[in-house]
């Protein structure tokens, strides 16, 4: 009963100060990752260059309505990709194929709009967008299920199979983009009928989808029986088996849900923020940043929202950097280094300088007393 009587402040204090919470470790590794990334950038570009890159990340001289809208869209995409990864991790799978699933969904959606006369005749943009919504998600789920079936029935590691699928999707995109119009595939010959003029509306829809998906995923994972079963399978397939769960079906289920979330990310990315399938040489980066987003959020669906916001800020507004003459990819140093440090948060589990010093002092005291007693006995 005492715990319920504690004031909110003490609870927050405990949450921050108790070292067993991994929250502390994540914050520490975020800080350390940020510092190390900054040192790397300074080492390459000098102090002035480093400061400039940092400034252009946070003090925007180049802010206008459109860039902020694209930043908000990016936040939604990263959040949804992170959710897809996090949902998989909860169920014990590492879905690296988010990138390929997003792209496959977007590609088939565009091909359908581009090729079928029936879709061309649908006059209302809203109608096209609604149909595309379901097409993207369906294709994304199918792509995800390929890896799921391989894992459930043939024990193929999902990391390998999803990476292969990512590259196959890349070549599908190249096949279609090249055969059509130049390097990128644009609906209706470049008629920007979806996004132009409506950037903010679409960005807000994207964020709404993200928040809805995050809450739904949280409710499902922590409040329902199905979610509990998924997490149990993720912890140990054998335990799930002994508990009477059909672990194969659960595994396929988690791939389906992860695919749905990846499909949402692809929908926001290709239909609500970009207006085209860009010509790509490698799997798109957002799917991989999703891994970092999920890790920083400690695989908690609700924590994905602030985590995605952080990564959108870190990797998003590159206009200032481009204008200053730096390569836009420089900002990815931050996400890469932070991912590495968050991946080794166990490091910080052992990093307790005060405890360590206390321990050292105690042991040296003990040694002294032992030495004294030994000396006394010797006398």
């Amino acid at each position, binding site marked *: 009963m005492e715990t319920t009587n504690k004031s909110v402040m003490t609870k927050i204090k405990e949450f921050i100060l108790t070292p067993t919470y991994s929250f502390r470790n994540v914050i520490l590794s975020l800080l350390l990752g940020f510092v190390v990334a900054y040192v790397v950038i300074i080492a390459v570009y000098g102090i002035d260059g480093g400061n400039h890159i940092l400034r252009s990340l946070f003090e925007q001289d180049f802010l206008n309505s459109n860039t902020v809208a694209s930043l908000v869209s990016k936040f939604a995409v990263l959040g949804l990709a992170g959710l897809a990864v996090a949902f998989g991790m909860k169920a014990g799978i590492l879905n690296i194929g988010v990138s390929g699933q997003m792209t496959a969904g977007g590609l088939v959606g565009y091909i359908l709009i581009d090729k079928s006369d029936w879709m061309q005749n649908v006059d209302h943009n809203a109608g096209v967008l609604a149909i595309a919504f379901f097409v993207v998600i369906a294709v994304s789920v199918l792509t995800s299920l390929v890896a799921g079936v*391989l894992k459930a029935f*043939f024990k193929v590691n999902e990391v*390998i199979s999803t990476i292969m699928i990512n590259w196959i999707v890349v070549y599908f995109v190249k096949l279609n983009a090249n055969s059509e119009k130049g390097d990128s595939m644009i609906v209706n010959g470049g008629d920007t009928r979806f996004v132009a003029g409506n950037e903010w509306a679409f960005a807000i829809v994207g964020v709404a989808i993200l928040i809805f998906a995050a809450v739904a995923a949280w409710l499902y994972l922590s409040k329902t029986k199905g979610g509990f079963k998924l997490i149990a399978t993720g912890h140990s397939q054998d335990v799930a088996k002994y508990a009477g769960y059909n672990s194969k079906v659960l595994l396929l289920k988690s791939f389906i849900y992860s695919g749905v979330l990846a499909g949402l990310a692809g929908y926001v990315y290709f239909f609500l923020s970009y207006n085209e399938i860009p010509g790509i040489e*490698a799997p798109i980066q957002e799917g991989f940043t999703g891994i970092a987003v999920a890790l920083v959020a400690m695989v908690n669906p609700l924590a994905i929202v602030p985590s995605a916001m952080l990564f959108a800020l870190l990797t998003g507004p590159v206009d200032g950097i481009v204008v200053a003459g730096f390569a836009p990819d420089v900002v*990815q140093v931050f996400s890469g280094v932070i991912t590495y440090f968050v991946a080794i*948060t166990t490091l910080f589990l052992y990093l307790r300088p005060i405890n360590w010093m206390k321990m050292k002092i105690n042991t040296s005291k003990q040694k002294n007393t032992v030495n004294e007693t030994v000396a006394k006995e010797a006398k």
Partner: protein
Amino acid sequence: MFESIIGGLFILAAIYSLASLSGLFAERSGTINLSINGGMIMGAVGYIMTSKLIVDDIGTLEWWVPIIGLLVGVIFSILVTSLLSVAAINFRGDHIIVGTAINILAPIISLIIIIAISNGQQFIPTTSYQLITVFTSDSLPAWLIQLIVMLSVAVLVGGLFYVMRFTSFGLRLRAAGENPHALAAAGVSVFKIRHLAMLISGALAGLSGAIAVSGFIKFSSYTSTIFGMGFIALAILILGQWRMQWVILGAVAFSAIYILAYVYGPEIDENQWYIYMVPYAVILITLPLFSAKSRAPKAEGIPYVNTGR
């Protein structure tokens, strides 16, 4: 045509054998090395950086420049792989997640290096720094150089086979992957063996990446990516069931498929992307055939905790 197929096969077989063996040495010692791709990228950028800097300095491409390039590539790769070995062996991080993080990190490090040494360009044309261009002349055709590279790699692989199979170090390495506690009970430091294995693993990945940019037709310019070769190497490792002879066989077979697709692709169809998909699809289809009866090392991916007994 025939010569380009043969030469490409030699080089590709060398690249994929080294990369898969990099994975093999790591996994037989109990560490899942997902960052082969990252190691290869670092090897490639080390090679490119060294050759460009030296050539810019002395004006011509001397014969010893690529050799130093290979060495620097190996060192770069060892450095980036040690990020994984420290995190996975000492700090007990999740091997797969740390490996993924390094795979995200390596292209970025590589990109920064490329931008720093090439006045803001994001790519470096590699043809003028390639090992092949140094030695190729009228009397020495390119495929002969590629054959020599492959033969030296074959000698190296033979040496590694001997180490793995017939020396006490190889036995300890395999024991560290199957039953580390038994190894510790025998008085051998598991950490030391695993770190040594990761050192070999990093060196092999770097060598393979450096060879990839130094003699392979695909890289007319280096743009901080290695086209996912490291992941294919991992898949070959699984196809070969973690046994050296099968892994080498798999690497050669896959190289043959790949080079045929790559050379004949543009011939068959203008839209050669169909055919470029084939190698990845082949792996995706063959994986289930081999994965069901897995002979993976038993302690793979499980952090070793020294219980002090």
